[in-house]
């Protein structure tokens, strides 16, 4: 992995990184990918998992709501910036 690849991944991940971080991460991620690529040595068919995995979809009725506003203050208080009943963020559409 090259430095430019790391910079691209960082951009996708919405993390600003320095030049030094990009260089270090390129080396570290290359080493880790080298190790995990070992799983490509495993061949064989995907087993029939029904008997061993017991996962199924879980549904509930769309009803029984809590009282409106019950958690509003608690949750808004956690926001870095609020405007009345809203979480305040910078403009999303436009020059971004």
């Amino acid at each position, binding site marked *: *992995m090259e430095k430019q690849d*790391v910079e691209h*991944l*960082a951009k*996708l*991940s*919405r*993390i*600003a*990184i320095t030049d030094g*971080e990009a260089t270090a*991460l390129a080396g*570290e*991620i290359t*080493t*880790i*990918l080298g*190790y*995990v*690529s*070992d*799983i*490509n*040595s*495993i061949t*064989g068919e*995907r*087993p029939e*998992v029904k*008997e*061993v*995995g*017991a*996962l199924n979809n*879980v549904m*509930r009725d769309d009803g029984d709501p809590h009282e409106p506003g019950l*958690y509003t203050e*608690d*949750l808004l*208080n*956690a*926001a*870095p*910036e609020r405007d009345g009943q809203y*979480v305040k*963020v*910078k*403009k*999303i559409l436009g*020059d*971004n």
Partner: protein
Amino acid sequence: MTITELRKKFIDGSYTPLDAYNDAKKVIDEKDGDIHAFVDVFDDAKAQAEDATKEYAEKGENAPALLGVPFAIKNNILIKGKRATASSKILENYVAPYDATVIERLKAEKPLLIGTTNLDEFAMGGSTENSAFGPTKNPVDESRVPGGSSGGSAASVAMGASVAALGTDTGGSVRQPASFCGLVGYKPTYGAVSRHGLIAMGSSLDQAGIFTNSVADCELIYSIIAGKDKMDATTINPDTYPAVENKEIYTIGVPRDFLSVGMDEDVLEAFDAEIERLTSLGHTVVDVSLPLMKQGLAAYYIVMPAEVSSNLARYDGMRYGLRVEGDTLLEDYMKTRAEGFGAEVKRRILLGTYVLSAGYYDAYYGKAEMVRDMMRAEINEVFKDVDIIMTPTSPTPAFKIGEKEDPLSMYLADIFTVPANLMGVPAISIPELTVEREGIILPVGVQYIAPHAGDARLFDFGKKIFDDTRA
């Protein structure tokens, strides 16, 4: 000290919850400056201890099961009104608006919540050196790490500041620190315990876990926190998996081919001696072949970062946690996450983003998920012949602080513990082994793995070979 012993004294009044609080507080005041097990020590604990003391006087043995028992909670589990930092700068000032289900269930039995404990940032690490608030030291030998990521919880119990603690275990984060600190550490069957209110790391791997000084204590806490929860759709029902029965005599399988991976020689010798002891107790120990276990770590370091990159996308500086201002919304994101996350967290987010990207998805994530299914099929086949699988918990005792600088060597410390998380099976670490380093006796755990929903079997077996054999 165990909960069982403590409770007896609380009931007969020879020792009170207030005494327990005072003793715990004394340990924290004397030692925690060096050990740094705690993120926050609760100032309302004394009042709780006083109330608990009165309640025992009134109710005796009818008092709630954990009343007055000093308890510590890993700081990635939400306790209403307390900070839940995940030992990260991005959540440094985040106060939990609700109780995690495990906390709600614990509180019903009224333990004495002493404080919250340090961890590797967002539970990513095996040494608690990755905490944004500084490392935790091992109370057994302060030059060594307590293990991780639940190192603070392990250190809290090991130094006597609490009698039990909750942690979380995504790839060994309860069992490995239990091994390094000489405690019982437990990871339940995936879905046995609710994840609601745990700060998510790898959602298909995470489980809340337990630290105690005995298997019976662990079983007691498990019985309180486990069970179906409507807030976590992955929690299982009693009939989700086939019943796993307890036995008088167990057949234990040792995956001998798996043990060759980078183990200290004296750990292997102690492990082999322990097999002899189990045999002398009447159990049968046989070699089994589990060739895929070795590849577990590779699959884990694909699946886990993939889930990390997705789960940590929520830290955007908008709804809660840190925000660092930029000129635009995009800059807010980039700067907030650059300043808020530490190096290991960034590394895993980038790695996860890579393995999930178009063109690489099938080769990494798709393949790793297939390997998980193959591992489940492989172990279920072996469980037709044996009741429990036995390995060391860690290939070495606690290592020195600063010893493992490159990420990959740190990851290798998880080799024996990650398979249980990948497969979703329950696993316990029991402090049965010791080795000597620089004149100090260090503990090493033995890990036992049972089939899905075999939690009760691990407790039954663990009590037989550990609790019942100690003076």
